[in-house]
């Protein structure tokens, strides 16, 4: 009798993830405290933000209609971005093969493995723009710096993916090929390569797409490509030309993504 009274008559949705309602409210309280703290340290000027709204309208008004009259400049920048992305992907892919082997736990010696992984982590941490700054310092302004930046980040990215694929290789095929009396090179070509090839091609296509995207920003620090044109047009308040560039970038990126999805679906 008394047990029946302890069941609630109304259903309340239990909180997701937290298990108990108390922990849920503690989390909410923590979030509120965090926002109170962070917003107070950021000294956000509400007045200036509100002043920004009419300015936003003004900028958008000046962006419409987009100015495609400097088509030559636009086309040159886009083409440079594409070439940078393409060449960087290829260079990165070729260099990624030794790096991937060095960073695979199951074939590389321990010190080589650790060094390769450290190199990958170090490179992945820094945003492309930071790396681009250094290449601009070393090689001067222009597409070379951009090419090398993208090649470096493609190198480490593809190397990491390849290493993970090699680590997941099935030993059965390797032993089967080895049992026919094949040497090391033959073993790699006939048992490891077929297992990692299709995934690696997928990674490369993805990386090409990512490089097209990144090539549109590293120009901001002077590393060539359409980003340089865009950054210049913003600093000259040339908003209608900037709008044209933004539209072209969006179209290129969307196209690249669609192409990358299409190829990877075909590969599967």
């Amino acid at each position: 009798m008394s047990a029946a009274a302890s069941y609630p008559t109304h259903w309340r949705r239990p909180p997701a993830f937290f298990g108990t309602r108390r922990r849920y409210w503690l989390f909410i309280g923590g979030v509120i405290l965090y926002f109170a703290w962070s917003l107070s340290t950021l000294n956000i000027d509400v007045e200036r933000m509100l002043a920004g709204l009419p300015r936003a309208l003004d900028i958008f008004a000046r962006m419409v209609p987009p100015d495609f009259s400097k088509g030559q400049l636009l086309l040159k920048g886009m083409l440079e971005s594409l070439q940078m992305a393409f060449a960087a992907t290829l260079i990165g892919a070729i260099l990624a093969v030794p790096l991937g082997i060095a960073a695979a736990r199951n074939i590389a010696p321990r010190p080589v493995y650790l060094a390769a992984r450290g190199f990958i982590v170090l490179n992945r941490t820094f945003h492309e723009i930071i790396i681009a700054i250094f290449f601009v310092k070393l090689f001067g302004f222009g597409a070379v710096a951009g090419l090398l930046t993208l090649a470096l980040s493609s190198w480490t990215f593809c190397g990491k993916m390849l290493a993970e694929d090699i680590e997941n290789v099935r030993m059965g095929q390797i032993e089967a090929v080895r049992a026919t009396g094949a040497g090391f090179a033959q073993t790699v070509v006939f048992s490891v390569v077929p297992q990692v090839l299709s995934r690696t091609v997928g990674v490369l296509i993805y990386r090409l797409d990512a490089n097209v995207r990144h090539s549109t920003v590293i120009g901001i620090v002077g590393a060539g490509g359409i980003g340089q044109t865009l950054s210049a047009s913003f600093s000259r308040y040339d908003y209608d030309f900037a709008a044209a560039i933004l539209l072209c970038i969006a179209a290129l990126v969307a196209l690249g993504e669609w192409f990358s999805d299409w190829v990877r679906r075909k590969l599967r």
Partner: protein
Amino acid sequence: MNTAARRYPEIWQRRSLRETISAWLWTAALAAAAVWSITMLDIEWAFFSDAHLQAIDLAERMWPPRWSYLPVIIGPLIETIHIATIGTAIAYVFSVPLAFLAARNTTLNSFTWAIGRSLLVISRSVNTVIWGLLFVAIFGPGPVAGIASVAARSVGFLAKLVAESIEEADRGPVEAIESTGAGTGQVYLLGILPQVMPVLVGTTVYRWDINVRESSVLGFVGAGGIGLQLYASINQFAWQQVLVVLAAILLIVLLSEALSAYIRARIT
């Protein structure tokens, strides 16, 4: 007898003649495209001849790191994390309605679906730093522009993945809730949202650690965070400070990556 035997070659070949030719054609096409890309970039090869000397010179100027600069960058470091966190939080809030708008099974009609999809494409195809250029022009330099650009880029990223998971949601719970007489809003809230919650939270946490990395460079375009100090130090040729800033960025990016991986491992 004789003809049947002739069909099988004596020596095993991995590829047929046709496959070999097509593989070589692909390779040739790729090589031609690579050569075209690299030659069109008009690279100044002279810069390569002394690049290693420049790099050594730069490394010497960076050493030893000027640790006395560290107290100056603590504030901007915290600001960088705040920009990433608040930006991601805003994106989290806006991504849910956008995802419902852009998912084929929850959107109102094909017109609203097209609006949702094009918002996704616009948000995703413009890089965070380019959003930064735009928002600095609107709000003026400072963390507000950074927060807005992180949010603008992340909302499409989150909403795309959540929309895909809404489209794949199990019909069972939805029908169960519909059969209790619940309205559309209740069905979405109780039938679909709990199913996509793990994806939503997991992607948000993942995006947050990408955003920490992205907000480390937002300062280059004036959108707040540590990038401002990094850019200033580079422009003053204060390379010993640059090393300190890079070490600090390395630390916060690695920490946020570890934290994000830990949370994602807990919730999935």
